[in-house]
């Protein structure tokens, strides 16, 4: 069931918007005029991803720069270890793990962006 999430005019190309829809938290992204919705929190430290940056289809987390593909939700790279005194000597340590984002179907109806938050 598609639910209204935002207006098309709310998001310029390259923009992101964090929304709560029926208990689900997600980020709507505008990539070259096409809209995508992914889960809102990074799987590492739970940062709100709309506070990061969107470079094309690549979303970068604001806290530790993990990167995600907004089309597939896949994690492209993990969080970067802290510098210069590396707190985590092993970047593959469980503390630095993140996971892919859940993606949601998006439909444009007139000037409204709707998202199906119940899709599996």
């Amino acid at each position: 069931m598609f639910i209204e999430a935002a207006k098309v005019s709310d998001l310029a190309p390259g923009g992101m918007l964090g929304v709560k829809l029926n208990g689900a938290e997600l980020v709507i992204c505008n990539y070259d005029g096409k809209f995508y919705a992914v889960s809102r929190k990074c799987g590492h430290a739970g940062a709100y991803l709309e506070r990061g940056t969107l470079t094309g289809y690549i979303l970068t987390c604001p806290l530790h720069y993990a990167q995600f593909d907004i089309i597939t939700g896949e994690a492209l790279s993990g969080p970067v270890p802290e510098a210069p005194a590396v707190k985590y000597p092993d970047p593959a340590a469980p503390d630095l793990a993140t996971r892919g984002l859940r993606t949601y179907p998006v439909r444009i109806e007139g000037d409204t962006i709707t998202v199906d938050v119940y899709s599996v």
Partner: protein
Amino acid sequence: MNVEAGKKALRFQFAPLVDKLGYKFNPAEEDVEFLLEAEVTFQRQYGIPYCPCQARTRDRAGNMKIVCPCIPFHREHYDAMKRCWCGLFVHKDVTDPSALKQIPPDKFVKSES
């Protein structure tokens, strides 16, 4: 994190950066795939896509100068070779990358200016 998606993402991010620096991806596609795969591996291991062909040391500031694309930190040297050190990028006017030779840093003479 799969390698192919990682390589595609690096291509997507690097292309506009090196374009502004006067470089392009090496037309030798096999080499590019090999080098990008190595960078994706580094990104997994260290969180950062270091140059696959330059050694890292304990000097973090020095290591930051070999994060791909490292062209701005070695501009004069790479411009003289018309390629970056590993050959992932070449000057835009290069059509035959196999003709390009590496000049070791200790053999490269910087201009006076």
